[in-house]
């Protein structure tokens, strides 16, 4: 704050120094918040990872099926499907597992088939 008072005094004229101390007391708060918003705004990686709100996209998760080139998602391989089902039995959304859309669609179809043939539960043991 002290530095700021000196800089305009060195560069500007008398009117500025006369006006500034009056304005600064009211403008100091919005100025500070603007300056704080600067580094936070265009860098979503930091607060996005720490906060629980998950406003920003996470560190890029890759689709397990695309990388391992698993083509056939069968309702019979329960072990593969159980990795994408929560403890309550719900299908985990793809923003958490990082699965790509076509594979998520096939996966959810397979999970529903497995549920119908009693290989996976409809509702788990959660209360």
């Amino acid at each position, binding site marked *: 704050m002290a530095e700021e008072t000196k800089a305009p005094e060195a560069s500007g004229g008398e009117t500025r120094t006369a006006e500034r101390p009056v304005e600064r007391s009211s403008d100091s708060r919005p100025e500070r918040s603007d300056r704080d918003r600067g580094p936070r705004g265009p860098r979503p990686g930091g607060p996005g990872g720490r906060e629980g709100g998950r406003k920003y996209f996470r560190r890029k998760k890759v689709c397990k099926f695309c990388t391992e*080139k698993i*083509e*056939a998602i069968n*309702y*019979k391989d329960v072990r593969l499907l159980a990795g994408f089902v929560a403890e309550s039995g719900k299908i985990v959304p793809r923003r958490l597992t990082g699965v790509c859309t076509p594979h998520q669609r096939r996966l959810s179809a397979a999970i529903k*088939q497995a*549920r*119908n*043939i*009693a*290989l*996976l*539960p*409809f509702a788990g043991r959660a209360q």
Partner: protein
Amino acid sequence: MNRTYELMFIVRPDMVDEDLNKLISTLESSVTAAHGTVKSEIWGKRRLAYTVRRFNEGIFVLLILEGTGAMVHELERRLRVTEPVIKFLTVRTDEELKRLDKIKKLRDSRKKASAAPPVTPEAGTEPAPATA
């Protein structure tokens, strides 16, 4: 005009082996009578994910069929009437198999194309994944 299906059904766990085999052979004969082919796999006793007709376990049987829709309709009708069968599920698989076949062919042709410049002529096995 023949479609491939997978028919999985669950039989009550207190069923005897020979009765199970009798049931499967009955189904198989009805399939061959309708000019289809059938392959059967008995998975054995498994724990069910939820209670079905007051059973917590069941014997899983898988039939891989080739035939018409009418044949499958008839099979399902039979299964519905059969008392020891507690659940069944039919899935049509020919489109899926066609798709998988296509992908496999694509991958094989890519591998052949990349293996054509004779750096190390591999013996046609596919352990190494094709990098695009």
